[in-house]
């Protein structure tokens, strides 16, 4: 390994199976390192990956950490606490009469036909949801003063019950937080060891269910997540790290450990959201500001959309059963991954998912005891994967096992041929990926054909060309570091702090004045925090936005609030409404719902080093094997196999071909042209059918 040059950045993404580390040095040299995770104590996995990486680099751990200018961490600890229900014992303070808001869940079941599946238990049992006597009006007037005795009584119950964290969510606290603050102060005094969080400081939005759910989730993760992070930071410091540990939030931005203390639930999508910064880098490389990425791993496919350089965001996410109303990168997840199980249903038709084989036993071909066929088994049968070792030797794929699993599951159903079933599995999984892309684009009024499709994760590159072709997409992109997509992104994550304030009034000159003041205050809060982070004013950006809607509509539309003029705001809102929904309602009242400020501190961008590409050279073929290339039934063909390790910037090849990279396998379709850019990433020109697609 060549010598790396300080200072460097390190991104570490802890996944269920692997812990990914990426280091980018001062010259832009990128060093990826993958090692097994330690689910019982993720910090051990992190420290072990640092040891492993330093060995590979020929450095000691202390030098590796000492030379690090930014250490950025994406963690699944918060996610897993919520998914596995291993969080803290939580108490909740509510307004008298409303202790059950969180259990009623607005009476809504997303999959209504499946009425037999129970809801998970609420994160806080009813016996620990304690009402206090108080009332605010919608405009923030005190209608009933806070009864301090009821707060004191709650504290006694919480103490007796061994509560580790208390969430406080009172009606209309977004309009006036005085009672929530008073409760928090009293409880902090009475229960000094208990974590306390208020809805008005976390998510001051209208809607008691969403606010309450967010606050409870925050209380639920804090007592376990924060000590884990502090301990990790201490260990890193002890080993030589001199900088603050930075953490990736669900919004894709980074935040320092001491600032996450009041809102640790903002780390709920910490890992996958870091892919955002990778996408930003890929925009530059592809020269296209419109990207759709499909990140496919063992259990799922995550779809993310970037339009005109802006990643699609959502104002709430759901993790397990918990709704979290904080701005987040919008990641649409479907259960289509390498380990997704396939078979034949009661009526004789094929299904792919939603069940998965997980990491253990995994696909049948892994030989870890899985008996049911998965998408990976189908890829192996079709020759797109080969019998033999993968993932640096930690896996050995056996065709015989895949064959037996498919034969068992499809015997007599789809004709005798296992390859027919395998082709059908791939076809169906490509269809579900394509439908997921259509869903995220259609509801935003976007045409996927105008985007570049990014294939990431271990399995994305096997699907990307075919899915692009079916969607009429002309360009696909596969980062060379597809398998460490998120860790790579972390190295260039911006620091970001989000603020919201509820307005909730019809658009008028007066309301715009209120809005201007609210935005100015939020911006000022953000500026102070960024200054404390050590950013200079010219490294700061403030995105100011306002959510508006027609009176009566359910979903607001967010528009830029740069130009604070009632007529301009309405114009902007209607232009966006027209674009998304193809209609405007010129006579309807418009409401200003929420003011939003994102304070962003830009870290200087470190780009991977670019090679000199003098001219285009035909890539060398390593060998050939029989592959069924399209997912429809057709004879196998001898297809060139290219070894990723042999490929250099400037290499190109016209498909069909399979490219075997260290962390992924790329399927290049018939007539597709693939080439390597100066960074070693793959670009595919997709051969679209000549008839073209019926664009609509």
């Amino acid at each position: 390994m060549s010598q790396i040059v300080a200072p460097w950045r390190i991104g570490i993404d802890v996944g269920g199976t692997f812990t990914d580390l990426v280091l980018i040095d001062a010259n832009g040299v990128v060093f990826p390192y993958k090692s097994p995770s330690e689910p019982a104590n993720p910090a051990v996995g992190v420290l072990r990956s640092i040891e492993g990486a330093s060995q590979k680099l020929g450095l000691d751990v202390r030098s590796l950490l000492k030379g690090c200018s930014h250490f950025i961490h994406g963690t699944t600890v918060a996610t897993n606490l919520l998914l596995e229900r291993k969080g803290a014992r939580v108490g909740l303070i509510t307004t008298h009469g409303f202790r059950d808001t969180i259990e009623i869940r607005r009476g809504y079941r997303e999959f209504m036909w499946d009425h037999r599946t129970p809801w998970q238990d609420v994160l806080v049992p009813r016996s620990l949801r304690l009402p206090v006597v108080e009332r605010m009006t919608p405009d923030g007037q005190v209608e009933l003063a806070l009864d301090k005795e009821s707060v004191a009584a709650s504290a006694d119950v919480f103490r007796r019950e061994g509560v580790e964290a208390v969430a406080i969510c009172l009606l209309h606290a977004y309009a006036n937080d005085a009672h929530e603050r008073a409760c928090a102060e009293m409880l902090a005094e009475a229960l000094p060891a208990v974590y306390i969080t208020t809805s008005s400081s976390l998510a001051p939005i209208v809607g008691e269910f969403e606010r309450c759910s967010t606050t409870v989730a925050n209380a639920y993760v804090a007592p376990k997540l924060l000590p884990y992070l502090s301990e990790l930071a201490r260990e890193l410091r002890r080993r030589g790290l001199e900088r603050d540990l930075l953490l990736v939030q669900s919004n894709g931005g980074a935040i320092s450990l001491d600032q996450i203390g009041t809102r640790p639930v903002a780390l709920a999508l910490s890992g996958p959201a870091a892919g955002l910064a990778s996408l930003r880098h890929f925009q530059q490389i592809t020269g296209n500001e419109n990207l759709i990425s499909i990140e496919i791993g063992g259990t799922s496919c995550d779809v993310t959309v970037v339009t005109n350089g802006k990643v699609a965001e959502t104002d709430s996410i759901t993790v397990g059963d918990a709704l979290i109303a904080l701005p987040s990168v919008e990641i649409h997840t479907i259960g289509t991954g390498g380990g997704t199980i396939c078979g034949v249903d009661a009526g004789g038709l094929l299904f792919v998912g939603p069940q998965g084989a997980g990491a253990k036993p995994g696909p049948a071909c892994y030989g870890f005891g899985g008996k049911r066929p998965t998408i990976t088994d189908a890829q192996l049968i079709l020759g797109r994967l080969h019998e033999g070792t993968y993932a640096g030797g930690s896996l050995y794929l056996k065709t015989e096992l895949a064959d037996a699993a498919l034969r068992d599951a499809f015997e007599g159903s789809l004709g005798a041929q296992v390859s027919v079933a395998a082709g059908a599995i791939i076809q169906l999984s490509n269809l579900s990926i394509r439908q997921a892309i259509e869903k995220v684009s259609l509801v935003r009024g976007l045409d996927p054909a105008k985007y570049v499709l990014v294939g990431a994760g271990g399995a994305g590159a096997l699907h990307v060309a075919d899915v692009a072709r079916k969607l009429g997409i002309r360009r696909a992109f596969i980062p060379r570091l597809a398998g460490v997509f998120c860790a790579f992104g972390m190295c260039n994550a911006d620091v970001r702090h989000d603020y919201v304030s509820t307005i909730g009034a019809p658009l008028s000159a007066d309301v715009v004045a209120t809005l201007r003041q609210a935005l100015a205050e939020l911006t000022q809060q953000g500026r102070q925090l960024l200054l404390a982070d050590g950013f200079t004013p010219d490294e700061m950006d403030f995105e100011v936005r306002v959510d508006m809607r027609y009176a009566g509509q359910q979903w607001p539309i967010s528009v830029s609030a740069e130009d604070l003029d009632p007529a301009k705001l309405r114009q902007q809102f209607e232009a966006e409404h027209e674009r998304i929904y193809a209609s405007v309602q010129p006579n309807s009242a418009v409401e200003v719902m929420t003011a939003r400020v994102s304070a962003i501190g830009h870290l200087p961008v470190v780009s991977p080093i670019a090679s000199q590409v003098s001219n285009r050279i035909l890539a060398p073929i390593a060998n050939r094997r029989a592959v069924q290339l399209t997912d429809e039934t057709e004879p196998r063909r001898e297809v060139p196999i290219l070894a990723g390790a042999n490929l250099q910037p400037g290499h190109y090849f016209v498909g069909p071909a399979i490219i075997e990279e260290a962390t992924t396998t790329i399927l290049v379709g018939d007539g597709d042209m693939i080439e390597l850019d100066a960074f070693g990433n793959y670009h595919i020109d997709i051969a679209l059918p000549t008839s073209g697609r019926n664009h609509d």
Partner: protein
Amino acid sequence: MTDAILTTLLQNQLDHISKQMGWVMERTARSPIFSESHDFSCFIADASGRLISVADGIPIHTGGGGFAVDAVLRDYGADGGIVPGDVFILSDPYEAGGNHLPDWTIIRPVFVDGVLLAFTCNRAHQSDIGGGAAGTYNAAATEIFHEGIRLPVMKLIGAGQVRDDVWRLLKLNSRTPHLLDGDLRAMIGSTKVGERRIQTLTEEFKLDVVAGCFDAILDHAEACMRRALLALPDGLYEGEDSSDNDCFQTVDVLVRVAVTVKGDEVKIDFTGSAPQIAGFKNSSVANTHSAVYVALLSYFGVTIPRNSGAFRPVEIIAPRGSVVNANYPAPMTANTGHPAIEIINAIWKALAKAAPDLACAGWGKGSSCVSSGKNAAGETYVMYHMHAYPAAGAVRGRDGFPSIGGVISLGGMRIPNVEVFERKYPVRIHRQEMRCDAAGAGEYRGGTGIDYEVSVSSRASYSFRGEGSFTPSGFGISGGGTGKKADVVVSTHAGAEIAAPQYGVMELPPTRISVSSAAGGGWGNPLRRQVDLVFRDVRDGVVSTTAAREVYGVVCTSDGIDYVATEALRHELAGRQPEN
């Protein structure tokens, strides 16, 4: 490619198309009834009117849309009466295959190379269609003429030309023409999206392949349903459920069903049900079929595709002139609620005898009101008191949901936030809390129902619909207990109680309303409920220590469970239970 693979792919893609139609509708429609309550459904029928794919709209629309497409084919199907660019509209339940008048159905033929391949359709509840009361529900109606404009099968767009005269007629008959106009456009737009997507599908898969697959898609659903039926023991199973009023007086309105399971087929016979009634709770043929499908599909589970194929092994006998198939001109706007709920309950009760493990306990029936008045700015508002939604019944494996709405929506409608309502309407909501000792007891207990209290600060008009108020409606099943009935108490701010009707409209001064919504029924013997779950319910205050002891046989002490006493008590109580 084998047929099974092709069928899988096409079914998958057609379902995706009907869902896309729904997304377009949800995002573009004007009325909150669509965006908030999903009171619409998008579906695709083949050229002969069979339902091929139904997106998950409101469950009570499921399966009824075929009658509407049949009506289009009956009126225009011969002699080139249907041409590319046509868009049909209809609503009448007697004349045009509608379910009830407020649901208008848009039907667009899809042609490929001049051949009629399919219809893309959208059925949606309109904000107002004239008639005797604003907002489509006229509890005083005694004839369908009191319920709004009746639409036969009409061309709203003929060969691409919008018929402006028809459009004006429709708007002229609504109190909210502006909303209606926008909603109609959204409906038409969604069927257009469906049309384009189906045409694209034929480019990918070839027309004759797509058309040929329709049969296979239906056959598959049929096979799934037949397997589910085959798993039930053959026999005649009877069930009944009733309403205690006809909207005007107290009278038992019975829905009686005889469910005959024979091999892989089922006959659902409503002979013996009550004659049609004076009020607007009469069912149409289309709505009765939908209610039967909701009962069967919710009973058997999610794996059965919800298309015409699944309905093939189901024979439905709905006697004319009865409450499940009323004769013209009976009013019927309430039918998607009642008697749809009675139909579902009767079938669930019958099927419970066939397979107690699969049985579903009753969901509470609604008791609430709609208030309408002027807000501080002098604008008219209409507020549905949704925070008083009733509870769900239990099934084996889960307790009932505490507050979820009628069984006809299966939880598909969202209750708005209290904070939103207080910002929008002149009200102060004081309470939205789970009831104590109301849930039907069981190994899995029913949903608790809700205690709801609200003050309305200005004069308003109230339309009461108290179906769940006088008779317990969340029936217990397979040994479970019945959930408590609802209570509605109306009083002035000074505290004087006002007698409110079960159904009817009243004008009232500033008022305080308390509703305890109907609780759900329990599943299974309460003496078999896990002791720690009973204790949790006691700690949570939704079951009293008295009920824990007397109903569940669980003896709670101040700090836990007395296991020894509990075992003895459960033994003793079990000895007193009748053999079954």
